[in-house]
């Protein structure tokens, strides 16, 4: 019986919403365009004899590579043509049949696009391989950004499920990052840094809750103001404290903890099972949030407050208290995300979070306000952000400035166009007043 009401409840509740068939056709057309682009730009755009080398062995693992996969050398043109044909076929199928899984097919097309882009960006003329792509390190290195986005989007899910829009995730990131850098540098303990980051994030969350729940201020505006405030505070601290006392901003990184046996799995092992404590915390939090929101009494009450606060109040649930506590909790999660960010990025500098708080919010929307969905979206955004950074270093004839726009363009495209209308909690962003 308990399986009846699981994580899928909110989704199962929208059977009446007919996905417009026209939109699926558009997605099909986009997938076709993607396929054609891959074939003609990445495929025939590569010289006939060009090669790309794909490497699977990790570069430097704390535990050393317990396995060895030989490199794969491919003919760039023809591999990319095949990848393009896969995307093309999926696009044509989507265009003709307009299936319910149109978006998933587009996603596969997107993966093909990234793979082809990678092969193309490292192509070398002649048979002697020089440039390589290391699939394992792409994944390992993206995992840092993915982890931060997961913290952020979980924070968003928590707050918005209770009916408060948390635009201030970026501010909580900044707060956690500054505090984390300083605490870790002085105590040399990431545990203490995490604790202080959680407290700082919770305080920023409390400020948001105070203004949103108690003073019924516009949540979007105060959220943005809080981000600006935290940005200014971090600049001030940077100039007045971190710059004169560089030993408060050492840029330490936590060591990785390999999980016995599992870390030995090729490619996946180094990505998922040889990570730092923050990565494991993110994974645990996803499971915990999902369980909490959809299986427990606490979650039912939080969701009822986010959907129909009046109904919640009519059965004796204190709407303001639930919103306060959930937003503070959400702030704490994002604060921990800020510490995780600084733990993987090195020294703190103002602006270092570069809008990841907002991208996390987009990931939350893309994930349809569900922890599991937020993870998928975070992976999408995280990998594309990492790839772009990486492509800047290789021989791609696109300007760096344009490439840095890319993750944000992906965000806009995904949120505005591709997912179409998704249903947020009904009382999301609506202040509640007893009358």
């Amino acid at each position, binding site marked *: 019986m308990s399986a*009846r009401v699981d994580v899928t409840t909110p989704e199962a*509740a929208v059977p009446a919403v007919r*996905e417009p068939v026209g939109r699926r056709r558009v997605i099909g057309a986009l997938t076709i365009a993607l396929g054609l682009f891959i074939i003609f730009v990445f495929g025939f755009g590569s010289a006939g004899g060009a090669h790309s080398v794909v490497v699977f062995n990790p570069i430097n693992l704390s535990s050393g590579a317990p396995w060895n996969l030989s490199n794969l050398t491919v003919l760039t043109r023809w591999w990319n043509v095949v990848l393009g044909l896969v995307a093309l076929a999926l696009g044509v199928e989507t265009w003709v049949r307009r299936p319910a899984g149109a978006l998933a097919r587009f996603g596969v097309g997107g993966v093909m696009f990234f793979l082809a882009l990678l092969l193309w960006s490292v192509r070398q003329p002649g048979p002697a391989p020089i440039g390589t792509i290391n699939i394992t390190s792409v994944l390992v290195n993206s995992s840092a950004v993915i982890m931060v986005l997961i913290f952020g989007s979980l924070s968003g899910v928590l707050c918005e499920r209770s009916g408060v829009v948390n635009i201030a995730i970026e501010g909580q990131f900044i707060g956690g990052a500054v505090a984390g850098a300083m605490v870790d540098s002085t105590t040399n303990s990431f545990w203490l840094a995490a604790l202080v980051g959680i407290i700082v994030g919770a305080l920023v969350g409390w400020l948001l809750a105070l203004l949103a729940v108690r003073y019924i201020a516009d949540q979007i505006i105060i959220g943005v103001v809080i981000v600006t405030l935290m940005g200014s505070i971090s600049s001030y601290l940077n100039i007045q404290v971190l710059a004169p006392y560089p030993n408060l901003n050492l840029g330490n990184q936590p060591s990785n903890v390999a999980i016995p046996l599992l870390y030995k799995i090729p490619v996946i092992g180094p990505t998922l099972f040889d990570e730092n404590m923050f990565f494991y915390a993110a994974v645990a939090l996803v499971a915990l949030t999902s369980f909490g929101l959809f299986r*427990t*009494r606490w979650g*039912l009450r939080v969701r009822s407050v986010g*959907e129909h606060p009046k*109904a919640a109040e009519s059965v004796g*649930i204190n709407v303001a208290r639930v919103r306060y506590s959930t937003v503070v909790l959400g702030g704490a999660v994002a604060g921990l995300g800020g510490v995780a960010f600084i733990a993987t990025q090195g020294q703190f500098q103002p602006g270092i979070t570069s809008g990841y708080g907002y991208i996390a919010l987009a990931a939350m929307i893309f994930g349809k306000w569900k922890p599991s969905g937020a993870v998928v979206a975070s992976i999408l955004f995280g990998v594309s952000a990492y790839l772009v950074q990486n492509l800047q270093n290789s021989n791609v004839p696109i300007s760096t400035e344009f490439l840095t726009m890319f993750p944000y363009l992906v965000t806009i495209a995904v949120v505005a166009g591709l997912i179409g209308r998704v249903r947020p909690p*009904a009382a999301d962003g609506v202040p509640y007043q007893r009358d």
Partner: protein
Amino acid sequence: MRVELKGITKRFGSFTANDQIDLVVEPGQIHCLLGENGAGKSTLMNVLFGLLRAEEGEILIDGTAVNFANSGDAVRHGIGMVHQHFMLVPVFTAAENVVLGFEPTRSFNRLDHKTANAQIHELSQKFGLEVDPDAVVENLSVGLQQRVEILKALSHDAELLILDEPTAVLTPQEIDALMEIMRSLARDGKSILFITHKLKEVRAVADVITVIRQGRVVDSVPPTESEGELASLMVGREVNLTVNKEVTPVGDVVLELRDVVVRDDRGLAVVNGVSLDVRAGEIVALAGVQGNGQTELAEAVAGLRRVESGTISLRGRDITNLSPREILDAGLGHVPEDRQRDGLVLSMSVADNLVLNTPRRAPFARRGTRNLTAVAANARDLVQRFDIRTSSIDATAGSLSGGNQQKVIVARELSRPLTCFMASQPTRGLDVGSIEYVHRQIVNQRNEGLGVFIISSELDEVVALGDRIAVMYAGKITGVVEPTTSREDIGLLMTGASVVDHV
């Protein structure tokens, strides 16, 4: 359980919503609270249910004074409330809604769905209210949603059940079923407080009727009192409950709908092939339970919603998918369903609201500059002609009573040359006096040869006004009948059944 309210007084600022109200509900009694909108019924019930706190007075349960800090307290004292706007979370299941706030749990705070479902099953059996515990509430019909709401109240061992305007959203058949439920609950010893402004229902089901007017108890009477007497108690003066209409000649078709299909915000075809004619000099009333596509149809006619297919024409001119401005200029008068949201700008003055759809036209504006003298003259004229009670023409529309707000809209629409007049829920939430007035205006327009299209979910209104009655169900017209047709037959059409003698 015997519940006694003693000297309850509730003020909002300088306004006294409840003034020294005394009320006693005996065990097993169906006690009706009758009063107009704004008489203070809902305020009183919110006080009794712990949602509001009274300034004076006390609540006694079986002789003991109680004090409710919130509705949870009221529930613990055996008071259950079925709200007019259901207090149900649409995306939750019936079971989740019923147990919300009182959830059975297992270890780690987990919800115990098994126990919850069993509880609901037991209640359903006991009171004969079948509901699928796993059904998602938003997929249930309104009648079933109300059943969930009642179960929710009963699940907390309610001994007194407050039903706040429970019939407003139901079909006549569902109303009958609800009354049967009320009677059977009363037989089980539950007390019922039934709040309404509908006279027929009160007389059908009540043991005692308490009438409230302007925050005070006017009288308590037995249900044998006639409808006329109840109405005058409620309003405070003699009321004419019928609309006088003379027979007038009917002219050409002014509004023609052909196979109109309209989608709602979710993309569903909620108006699915509607064809209907409104002729000059007649009132066509569109009946139907709220939510069967009437709202979307009206929006489509007014140009506020895209018409997917089909045509709408105004005196032969195709107005399908024209802009609202073009449609208004073509001669459609429109009184929207939600007057505060769509009919008025509440923060603007009465005078500005009276020219809201003609602000750019002479004499109200010239070369892009407003002529405030003309606007004020127009306002003074309309305020006087339509008897709009306002402190001044510069007062904000939001400061007016509901009835006077509606008069502003009606005055604005009728002060332009019209081909067809369309009004959605023209008297919703109005007091009896204003209803009389609006009805008279509508009939006058018809007598002067205007085609009138009324959309209403109040069966009384539809029958009183309509020269022809079209009934809408699930996006389709299920029948067009004479106003003499029995209420039962119209009720059946409202549930989708077809009736033989169409006109």
